């Protein structure tokens, strides 16, 4: 019996979540292609003013809608599967799906309306929507509904956990549910920032209830949320790497206790680092920036630990499959299994993305890279590959289980992750080098009269070529993925599927870790304390010594 037979309601929730996610992925990916071709000058099919509409759509659809709906799908599966029980309250489940869908549709409509001049509605404010740039009020309403929807999703899983806990008072929390709880608690304490920004300040200002807005305070509230959100995206990828990848490799998770430590560290450290996105902002004292820097550097630790644990688990699988030698075991891995390949390549790319992240975290070296195209180079490696490619890889393994259908077009499915990896290597390396030369991000036509860009290694033309070609390869890979999904979805229900959903016991189980790791009340308390320590003074300073307000500039 597969998941879809054991838990039909939850399987339906997951299917619907993933359907919205993949639709957003498709549209957002198309926008990305348009951007890559436009800004390099290879092919311009829209005006440069419309480029910013496309860019807003790309950011919101991919970084918000695709990621969040993938997370709700994956986490619903993880909680149901690891606790072995149905959702505690089906109404709550339906509520988050509806609320998130309505919210994201509303926001998307305001963005897409920017293409049609006769509709008096647009939101060319980009994913970060910094005031005094002003979007249509419904853009913000949609965002607020969406965020509230995610809160309800967290409540759904916590309620199910609580029921399980009542039936199992002494057991350790199963690892997958542990990860979900850590992630959602982190989400609650961080999303309060953007919710406050939107509901208390930006929305009233865009409706005309208040006349001016404090741009520095708004930015700071956004980035209070903005770094934690990338971990919100990353943790489901980690869930896949910790629990599914070892099984796909033919092995077992190397260490469950260390996995728990890693996620507790994320809960504690993901949020009190937000100022590292504002190193170059005026109005924030250098001391606060320094503290953000040290915290961010320590936030590297859980990711570095993950690298070891995950690779060790994969090695275990390779050796159980008969691999030998110091490095030769790599050949014994299932390189013809699309789910494995996607996750392995995603993990490899994350190691590279981690390095550019280390540079970004450096307080003063940030002068070199801030707002250049190095930054998108970095996050296309991390969220664009580590997260996105892992989600696609996981889909190859999960979708058969939640639909009861066999994976179709397997050849295309195997080719897809390799193509993504090649495309992203080309695009991202060129973005990093172009950023070092000073080429800016978020710019429709980075070709200037007075500004000459000189590359460190290679010329600017060649970098543009790589970005354009990389973008095309990525879009092709995306099309392959969507094709495989569509064919699988539309196929007939099968008597057997060719994946197996059993997750083996880890080599070192939770019984080898102290129980305090499962004490989320403690960790939440410490996390909140850290937040207060880091953010109370600067935010209070901004409220008491406010930046003179700005009127709206409609976009």
């Amino acid at each position, binding site marked *: 019996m597969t998941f879809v037979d054991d838990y039909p309601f939850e399987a339906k929730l997951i299917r619907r979540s993933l359907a919205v996610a993949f639709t957003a992925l498709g549209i957002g990916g198309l926008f990305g292609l348009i951007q890559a071709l436009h800004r390099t000058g290879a092919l311009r099919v829209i005006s440069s003013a419309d480029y910013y509409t496309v860019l807003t759509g790309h950011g919101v659809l991919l970084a918000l809608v695709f990621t969040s709906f993938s997370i709700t799908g994956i986490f619903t599966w993880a909680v149901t599967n690891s606790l072995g029980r149905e959702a505690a309250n089906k109404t709550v489940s339906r509520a988050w799906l509806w609320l998130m869908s309505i919210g994201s549709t509303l926001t998307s409509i305001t963005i897409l309306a920017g293409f049609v001049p006769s509709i008096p509605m647009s939101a060319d404010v980009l994913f970060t929507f910094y005031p005094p*740039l002003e979007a249509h009020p419904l853009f913000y309403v949609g965002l607020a509904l969406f965020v509230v929807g995610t809160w309800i999703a967290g409540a759904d899983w916590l309620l199910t956990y609580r029921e399980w806990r009542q039936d199992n008072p002494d057991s350790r929390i199963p690892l997958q549910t542990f990860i979900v709880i850590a992630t959602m608690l982190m989400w609650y304490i961080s999303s309060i920032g953007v919710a406050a920004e939107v509901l208390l300040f930006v929305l009233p200002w865009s409706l005309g209830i208040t006349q001016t807005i404090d741009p520095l305070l708004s930015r700071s509230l956004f980035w209070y949320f903005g770094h934690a959100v990338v971990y919100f995206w990353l943790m489901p990828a980690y869930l896949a790497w910790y629990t599914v990848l070892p099984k796909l490799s033919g092995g077992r998770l190397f260490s469950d206790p260390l996995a728990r430590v890693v996620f507790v560290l994320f809960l504690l450290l993901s949020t009190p680092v937000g100022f590292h996105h504002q190193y170059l902002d005026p109005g924030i004292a250098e001391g606060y920036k320094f503290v953000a820097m040290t915290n961010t550097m320590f936030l590297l630790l859980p990711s570095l630990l993950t690298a070891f*644990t995950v690779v*060790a688990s994969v090695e275990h699988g390779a050796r159980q499959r008969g691999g030998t030698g110091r490095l030769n075991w790599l050949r014994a891995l299932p390189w013809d299994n699309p789910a494995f390949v996607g996750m392995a390549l995603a993990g490899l790319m994350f190691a590279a993305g981690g390095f550019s992240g280390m540079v970004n975290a450096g307080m003063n070296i940030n*002068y070199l890279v801030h707002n250049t195209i190095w930054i998108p180079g970095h996050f296309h490696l991390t969220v664009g590959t580590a997260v996105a490619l892992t989600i696609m890889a996981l889909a190859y393994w999960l979708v058969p289980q939640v639909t009861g259908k066999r994976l179709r077009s397997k050849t295309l499915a195997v080719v897809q992750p390799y193509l993504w990896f090649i495309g992203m290597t080309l695009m991202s390396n060129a973005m990093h080098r172009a950023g070092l030369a000073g080429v800016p*991000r*978020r710019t429709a036509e980075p070709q200037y009269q007075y*500004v*000459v860009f000189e590359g460190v290694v290679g010329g600017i033309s060649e970098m543009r070529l790589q970005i354009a070609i990389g973008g095309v390869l990525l879009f092709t890979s995306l099309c392959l993925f969507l094709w495989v999904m569509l064919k699988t979805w539309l196929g007939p229900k099968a008597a057997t599927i060719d994946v197996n959903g059993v997750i083996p016991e880890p080599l070192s189980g939770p019984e080898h870790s102290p129980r305090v790791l499962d004490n989320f009340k403690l960790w939440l308390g410490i996390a909140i304390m850290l937040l207060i320590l880091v953010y109370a003074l600067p935010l209070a300073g901004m409220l008491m010594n406010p930046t003179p307000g700005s009127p709206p500039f409609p976009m």
Partner: protein
Amino acid sequence: MEIHRFEKFWLVASLVLIVGFIATITYGSVAAGVTMVSDTGGTIQPDSFENTGFDDPGVRHIEGDRYEAYVVAQQFFFNPGSSEPIRVPAGSTVTFYVTSADVIHGFQIVDTNVNVMVIPGQVSKITVRFEEPGEYGILCNEYCGAGHHTMEGQIVVVPEDEWEGGSQ
């Protein structure tokens, strides 16, 4: 708690790496003297620059080799910088005061480490030393509207004896 000895080793190595990064950054601050833009510039009314240095933007000589440059960033040009280049002499220490008249902009002198956010209501105050003559492009690297990609300027570091005051 049971941790494999390899992983313990890696834990220590990771912490060494992290401390190394923090130490390098601190070295940059303390020894190399790299300073972050902070709240030293103060705040300003974004819609009225009367009686501030910004009502007459440009470069002024203070004394010795110290200069001040007041730059206003707005959609979609730098004043000075866009219609005429900012001129400073070689061998000078220039304090830039940059603010915005409308939305958030960026002020980046390409091929240097001069890169700040420009927020309306705030003044970004940074001091830079220009030793050698040269020409640099300036661009806005924070999205500020439909014409963002046209927002550029120039800064020219002229030989010391050729500087004639202001931003001609």
